[in-house]
């Protein structure tokens, strides 16, 4: 059963080592840290970390994302290796083979791990990626399964809105992005999460809204539960919609 959930975006720029000498996105990072802190403070048995990726699978607890993929210097010499937090992690035990490589974790889960590591979180983690093209009903099923896996499950959902929110946005401007992201925000803000299940995968793909499957996992995990929420951040400073929220059940 889900005891609490946190929603955070997963831009690599949350990791300060990736953005150079000057501080970037401090407000966003603080909001993410606050939502993760509230989540871990509910003392769940496990944290289920969910993020969209190439394919749907659970990940071995030893899996890490190598941030040197974004900044090669980070991989060499004395620089700290990121995403290798010491917290214990479990696979969900769904029979899949453990990940062969230690550094194969998807980026969104790597950023989630980083947030949990930063919070000093020692709670066992379940790492779940969801394919970018996973059907909404399948996403909801994955959420329901995660919710049922333990008595007290904390859910950390790494999900990003459209990356087409302006002329300087990574995907250039698509006017439909505003409405799409507003729908997502409304669902999260009001706690009426089932509305997330109607987000169209094809439209989300066109809008580069990579968080769509993860939001639908959230909706499935909390289906039928009464949810109140606090939106801690909503903005698109780099042309990508970021939404940070704490969900209380």
């Amino acid at each position, binding site marked *: 059963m889900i005891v609490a959930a946190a929603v955070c975006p997963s831009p690599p*720029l949350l990791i300060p*080592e990736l*953005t150079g000498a000057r501080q970037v996105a401090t407000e966003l990072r603080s909001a993410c840290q606050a939502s993760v802190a509230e989540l871990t403070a509910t003392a769940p048995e496990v944290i289920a970390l969910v993020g969209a990726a190439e394919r749907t699978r659970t990940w071995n607890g030893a899996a890490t994302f190598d941030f040197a993929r974004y*900044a090669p210097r980070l991989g*060499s*010499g*004395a620089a*700290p290796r990121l995403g290798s937090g010491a917290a214990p992690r479990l696979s969900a035990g769904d029979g899949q083979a453990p990940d062969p490589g230690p550094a194969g974790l998807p980026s969104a889960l790597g950023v989630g791990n980083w947030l949990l590591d930063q919070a000093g979180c020692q709670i066992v983690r379940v790492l779940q990626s969801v394919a970018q093209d996973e059907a909404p009903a399948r996403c909801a099923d994955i959420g329901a399964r995660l919710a049922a896996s333990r008595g007290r499950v904390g859910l950390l959902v790494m999900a990003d809105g459209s990356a087409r929110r302006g002329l300087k946005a990574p995907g250039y401007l698509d006017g439909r992005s505003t409405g799409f992201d507003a729908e997502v925000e409304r669902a999260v803000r009001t706690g009426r999460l089932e509305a997330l299940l109607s987000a169209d995968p094809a439209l989300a793909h066109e809008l580069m809204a990579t968080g769509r499957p993860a939001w639908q996992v959230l909706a499935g995990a909390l289906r039928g539960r009464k949810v109140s929420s606090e939106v801690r951040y909503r903005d698109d400073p780099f*042309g990508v919609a970021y939404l940070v929220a704490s969900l209380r059940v």
Partner: protein
Amino acid sequence: MQHDALPSAGTPQSAGTPQSLLRLGQHSFGPRQLLVMAIVNRTPDSFFRPGDTWDEPAAMERVHQVVAEGAHIVDIGGVPAAPGQDVDVPQEIGRTAGFIAAVRAAYPDLVISSDTWRHEVAREACAAGADLINDSWGGWDAALPEVAAEFGAGLVCSHAGGQAPRTRPFRVSYPDVVADVLAHTGKLAARAVEAGVDPERIVVDAAHDFGKNTWHSLEVTRRLAELTATGWPVLVSVSNKDFIGETLDVPLPDRLAGTLATTSICAWQGARIFRAHHVLQTRQALDMVSAIRGDQPPARAVRGLA
């Protein structure tokens, strides 16, 4: 992130003595820190913007500006390198010593260099607060090291092909110009150590254009790693010089791009001090080199990371 501790992968590795700490004034600089030495001429007739800082207020204004633009060192000189109107010892002292004292009073921590080949001038400069004697004329005056030692100052040991101060090269040739640079600067550095100059305050300079034609200066630039491999901190003074003008066939006002290209090539090969007219642009070129080498992070990186 511990950028300073990163290995130097990607930089041409010169087999040789590693670069060590450099001390200038009260400061210590690590081997991978790139320093700009800003040129401040107290002359009416230097080659680049002649007379620009001949007046003391203009010269002090220039100091304020170069400090704001990121210079670690100001190099104050009273005699042009080129031949011309004679400037005797008292005149040179009159042009520089008092001004050095004024800069020292305004900037207690700034590294001040005295651009002179004469020990009498160097003595007054050091007494007024100079931290470094920049002798571009290759040790023509053998008494310079004793002055540096006496004041605890640093010394730049350069190669001018044995030419007298303020003379132009005339049909100069070398069997191997870089070998000559290595031999001469090595000899001067050893002599300075012998005279009691702090080894951590000794710098070497191949002295582009001094006793060299354009081919020689290009060769010295191409093979600068051989000089940095000696372990002595290397200063390069290439700003707007004739070898750049001849290489690009451009007049003085159009030599900045060539200067910055040369600066970058020298930095990549391990030079540590860059004597410059254009401080801001030189600082930016060097910051770019430092970031490419991985010695310092970009100021702000968000492209592709949002």
